[in-house]
C-alpha cells in the first residue's frame, strides 16, 4: 500500500509538467536534446562536471606517471589509460542516466540498499589489502564496496524521507527507519575498518534528515548515539591502536616518534609547501617521485598544490564550490521532494568528500582514506560518481531553474 502511494504521489507531483511536455517526450530525439532550454539538462552543472573531470584527468596523469614508470615496468600510461577509459564510459553513462526519469530510482531504493549490505558483508571475507577489507577484487577488476553504500544511503534516505515527509517529526517514521539502515551500515563499515566512510555516511545521513525536517532533538539524540557508538569502537575495541596512532601522527607529523605512519602526511605537506603561490608548473612535482606513496590516490591534491601552487588549488576549490552550489540550486528547485533530497544528497556527497579529502591532505584532520572526486585514481569510483552526476543532471531537466 505504501509503495502504491509513492507511485501515485510521484506520478501526481511530476504529472503536471510532464503532461505539458508530453509531445516532446514522445519524440525520442528530444531525450538527447541536452541543450534544450526547457527540458534540457543544466549546462552550468554539466560544464562544471566536465571541467573538473578534465582537470582531474590531467592531474591524475601528472601525479601517476612516476609511480607507473617505476613500479609498472616503465609504462608511464599505466594508470591514466584505465582512468581515461573509465572516464569516457562514465561520461556516456552520465548522459544516459541524465535521460532517465529519476523517479525510476524509487524502485531501486530498497534493492540498492540490499546490494550495499550484501557487498559490505562480502567485503569482510575478501583478503585484506594493506590490513583493511575495503576492496572487492574480481580478477583485475576491483572496487570499494563503500562506493555503493554512500549512494545507497543517499537514495534510500531520499526515498524514505519523501515517503514519510509529513511524519518526520515522529520517532517511528522520522527516526527508526533511518537508524535501522544506518546502524548496521556503520557497524559493517567499522569492521572493514573504514572510519572515513563512516564519517561521510553519518554526515550525509544527518544532512538529509536535517533537510527532511526531523525534530532537532532526535537529530541530536541520534547523532549523540552514533558518536558514542563510534567512541565505543575507538576506545574499547582492537581498533584502538589503529585510530590512536593516526591521531598522534596527526598532531605532530614531523616528530620522528610518530613513525612511518606519518610518512604520507609529511610528504604531502612537503609537496604543498613546495608549491608556493604559482607552483612548480604542471608536471614538475618532485614529491610525486615515489616520495608521496600512491600520489594518484588520496594525496593527489598535494601534487596539485605543488604543481599549480596556491592559485591552482584555490581555482580547483572554487570549481568544486560552484559545482556544489549549482547542484544545490538544481536540487532546491527540483520539481519534487524526492528530486530535491536525492540531488542534495548526491551533491553533498561530492562536497563532503572534497572537504574531507583536502582536510586530510592538509593535515587539518587525521589521515584517513578518502579519495578526491574526479581526481583520485579509481575507475569504478569515477564511473559511479559520473553516474551520480547524471542523476543530478536528470533532476535538473525538470528543475525550475533558469537555463542557458
Amino acid at each position, binding site marked *: 500500500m505504501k509503495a502504491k502511494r509513492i507511485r501515485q504521489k510521484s506520478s501526481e507531483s511530476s504529472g503536471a509538467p510532464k503532461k505539458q511536455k508530453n509531445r516532446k517526450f514522445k519524440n525520442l530525439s528530444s531525450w538527447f536534446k541536452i541543450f534544450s532550454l526547457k527540458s534540457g539538462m543544466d549546462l552550468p552543472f554539466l560544464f562544471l562536471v566536465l571541467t573538473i573531470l578534465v582537470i582531474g584527468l590531467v592531474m591524475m596523469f601528472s601525479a601517476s606517471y*612516476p609511480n607507473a614508470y617505476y613500479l609498472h615496468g616503465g609504462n608511464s600510461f599505466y594508470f591514466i589509460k584505465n582512468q581515461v577509459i573509465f572516464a569516457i564510459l562514465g561520461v556516456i553513462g552520465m548522459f544516459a542516466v541524465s535521460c532517465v526519469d529519476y523517479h525510476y530510482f524509487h524502485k531501486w531504493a530498497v534493492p540498492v540498499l540490499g546490494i550495499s549490505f550484501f557487498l559490505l558483508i562480502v567485503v569482510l571475507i575478501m583478503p585484506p589489502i594493506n590490513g583493511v577489507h575495503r576492496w572487492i577484487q574480481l580478477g583485475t577488476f576491483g572496487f570499494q564496496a563503500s562506493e555503493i553504500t554512500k549512494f545507497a544511503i543517499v537514495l534510500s534516505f531520499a526515498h524514505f524521507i519523501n515517503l514519510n515527509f509529513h511524519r518526520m517529526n515522529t520517532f517511528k517514521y522520522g527516526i527508526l527507519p533511518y537508524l535501522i539502515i544506518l546502524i548496521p551500515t556503520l557497524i559493517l563499515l567499522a569492521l572493514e575498518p573504514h572510519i572515513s566512510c563512516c564519517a561521510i555516511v553519518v554526515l550525509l545521513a544527518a544532512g538529509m534528515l*536535517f533537510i527532511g525536517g526531523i525534530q532537532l532533538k532526535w537529530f541530536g539524540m541520534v547523532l549523540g548515539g552514533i558518536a558514542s557508538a563510534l567512541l565505543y569502537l575507538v576506545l574499547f575495541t582492537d581498533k584502538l591502536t589503529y585510530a590512536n596512532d593516526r591521531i598522534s601522527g596527526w598532531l605532530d607529523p614531523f616528530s620522528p616518534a610518530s613513525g612511518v605512519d606519518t610518512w604520507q602526511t609529511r610528504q604531502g605537506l612537503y609537496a604543498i609547501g613546495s608549491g608556493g603561490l604559482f607552483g612548480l608548473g604542471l608536471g614538475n612535482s618532485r614529491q610525486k617521485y615515489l616520495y608521496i606513496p600512491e600520489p594518484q590516490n588520496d594525496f593527489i591534491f598535494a601534487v596539485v598544490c605543488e604543481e599549480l601552487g596556491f592559485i591552482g588549488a584555490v581555482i580547483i576549490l572554487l570549481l568544486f564550490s560552484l559545482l556544489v552550489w549549482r547542484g544545490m540550486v538544481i536540487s532546491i528547485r527540483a520539481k519534487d521532494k524526492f528530486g530535491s533530497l536525492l540531488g542534495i544528497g548526491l551533491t553533498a556527497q561530492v562536497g563532503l568528500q572534497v572537504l574531507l579529502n583536502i582536510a586530510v591532505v592538509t593535515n587539518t584532520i587525521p589521515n584517513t582514506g578518502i579519495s578526491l572526486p574526479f581526481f583520485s585514481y579509481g575507475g569504478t569510483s569515477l564511473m559511479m560518481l559520473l553516474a551520480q552526476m547524471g542523476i543530478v543532471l536528470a533532476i535538473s531537466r525538470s528543475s525550475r531553474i533558469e537555463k542557458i
Partner: protein
Amino acid sequence: MQRRSIVVLMIIVFAGFLLLVGRLIALQFFQGEYLKKMASEQQMADTKISAKRGTIYDRNMKPLAQSATVWNVVLEPAYINSDEKRKIICDGLGEILGMEKEKLNELANKKSCYTIVKKKVETDIKDKIINFKVKNNISSGIRLIEDYKRYYPCGSFAASVIGFTGSDSQGLAGIEAYYDKVLRGEPGKILTAKNAIGTEMPFEYEQMIAAKKGHNLRLCIDETIQKFMEKNLEEGIRNHKVKNRAAAIAMDVNTGEVLGMAVKGDFDPNEPFKITDPSEEEKINSLPEEEKSKARNEALSRQWRNKAVSDTYYPGSVFKMVTASMGLELDVVNETSTFTCTGSIRPCEGAQTIRCHKRGGHGTQNFVEALCHSCNPAFITLGLRIGTENFFNFYKSFGFHNKTNIDLPGESGDLFFSANGKMTQMDLAVASMGQNFGITPIQMLTAAAAIANGGNIVQPHVVKEILDENGNIVKTIDPVIKRKAISEKTAKRVTSMMLENATHGSAKNAYVPGYRVAGKTGTSEKIGLSTPGRKDYISSFCGFAPADNPKIVMLVFFDTPTGDFYYGSAVAAPVFSKIMQDVLPYMGIEKIYTEEELSKLDVHVPNLVGKSVTEAKNESMNNSLNPKIVGNGENVIAQIPSASEKIPHDGVIVLYTDAESKNSSVKVPKLTGLSLQEANKTAASFGLNIKISGVNSNDSAVISSDQSIAPGTEVAPGTSVTVTFIHQDGIT
C-alpha cells in the same frame, strides 16, 4: 522542503572550503619555506667533483707534492637498458679492472644511477675503458669521473715536513694538514634531482658547480740543502746506531725561513701507512693478533711524528749558549771572569753535588775557556749568579715558554719546572746546563738564530709564498721579528765565544775549513725516558756560519745513539760539519782561509792523460802527489782520480799505461779508528786516496770514525774514500 535548512547546509560546506583555503595559505606561505627546504633536502643528490689540490714546491719551484688526474669508474645501472649490454659491460670492466664479474654483476643490477666501481684508476686504464666503450658501442651505463691522486715525486724526501694526504685528498700531516684549506680548493658538485629510492629522475635536472683548484705553496725549504741534511742524517743514524730517530733543522738566521727540516726514521708519503722500518714490521708481525693493530698504530704515529717540532728534549749543553747570553747581558760575567772547576760542584747548602763530565776538573779557566770546555760547574756558578727570576725572564724572551707558531701541525710546548717560572736553586743549577726542562728543537734553533742575528727572535716558517694556479703570488709570508731577546753587543760576544769553541774548543768536530763556524755541542741524559738498565742520551749540535755575518743556523739532533760514542761532539758535530761543508758553498758563502787551513788544503789533480810516463811522474811530484804506475805502456791512457778532482797532499794518483791494467781493482781496507796520518798511510799503501771530512788535524786525539766506502768493497785503484775524523775528547 525547507529551503532554510539547505542554505544552512551549504553554509557549513562553504565554511569548510574557506577553512581549507586558510590551511593552504598557512602551508604554502607561512610554512612554505620550511617545507620546501625539507623537501629539497630529500630530493637533491649531489655528486662531488674533486678540486685539484695545489702543488707544493721547494724554494726553487721544484715540485715536492703534486696531484695528478686519475679516474673513478662509475656504473649507471639505471641507464643500462638490456641484460645483453649488462653482460658485455660486466665482462669488459671485469677484465680491464681485474674485478670479479659476480661483484660487478651485483652492482650493475642495483636500482641506482651512480655506483662507484673502482676509485682512482690511472689514465692507461681510463683509455682502455674508453676503447672498450667505443668498440662495443656503449654510450651509457659507464661513466668516468675525474679525480686526483697525490704524488710525492721525491718519495720520503722531507716527508715529515710535507706530510701526506688521506684517501679523499685531505691533508693528514705536515704542510698538507696545516695548509689544507689553502691547498685543497673547493670541490664542485653536480646537483641532480633524485626520487625516494635514490635513483635519478628520468628528466634532466642537472646543475654543475665547477670545482676550484687549490693554491700552490712555495716552501722556504731548498731541495738541495734538504738533500744534504737528509743524506748526512741517515749516515749518522747508521754509524751511531741511533735508536730513536734523528732530526736536523736549518734556518735563515735573519728571516726565519726554514731552509731544511729533515727527520729521519720517517716514511714515504706515497705509502704513509706502510711501516718503513722492516725490523719494526717484523716485530709487529710476530706479536699476538690482538696487540698487532695497536702496535702498528703506534709505529705509524711514531714514523709520522715531526721530531723537529713535536718532540721535546733536554737541550743539554747546547743551552749553555743561552746561559752565557744571559750572564753577559746581565753583566754578571765577562770573557775574562775566571771559574775554577774541581770536577764537581754543590750548587747550594745540603744539595747533591753535580759532577763535571771531566772527572778531574778543568781547573781554573776564563769564561771563554769554560764555554769551550763546556764546563758544568762554571755554568752552574753562572746560573746561580743570574738567579731564578732573571733566568725565567730570559727563558721567556728567548721564546722557550711559548710555541714558536711555526706553520706546521703538532707543535709541542715546553716543559718547564713550573708554569709560572718558580724553580728551586737546584733546578736553576741544572737548568743552567740545559738539563731537566724540555723544549722543542725548533725553539732551540730560534734562540740560536737570535744569538746569530744580533738578538732578534724571528718567526720560523716553512712556507714562503702562496701562489695561484697561474703562479701569481696570492700571499707572501714576510719575515717577522717578534722581539729582541738580547742586545746586539751581547749576541756578538757570545758568537765569538762560539766561534772559538768550534775552532779550538769542544765543538771543533763541527769545524768547516774556510767558513767560520760558531757552535755548541750538547749531550743530554734522557732522565726518566731511558731504556731500563741503561742511560740513554740525546746528542745534539747547534751552530751557525759564517760567524762574522751569520746566514744559516742549524741544529742536528740524534735521539739515543747506541754506537761507540754518544757525545754530541762525536755524534752530532761531525754530521753538522759534513752538512755545512756542502751547504755553505752551495749558498755561495765565500771561503776565507786562515794560514793554518791553507796548508792543509787539498791538491787539484792535473790532467796527465796522453803524457809520457816520465813526464806524468814529474808533473805529479811537482803537484805534491804520489804517482803509481800500472801497466807497461809508454804513455798514460787513464788516471784515477780524474783531472780537477781534489785529493789531500801526497795523495796517490794512479796512472794506467795499457788497457789491461785498467781492469785491476783493490779492496778497500778498514780506515776507521785511525789517526789522520795512519789513515792516509793505509790508504796510500792500497793505492787509494782519502778525502778528509770533519776535523783535519794531526792531533793524536783525532781519529777516523767512519768511511764512505765499506771495507772489503772492490774499487778501482786511486778511488777517493771519504773518511770522517772526529776529536776524541768526550766533551758535552
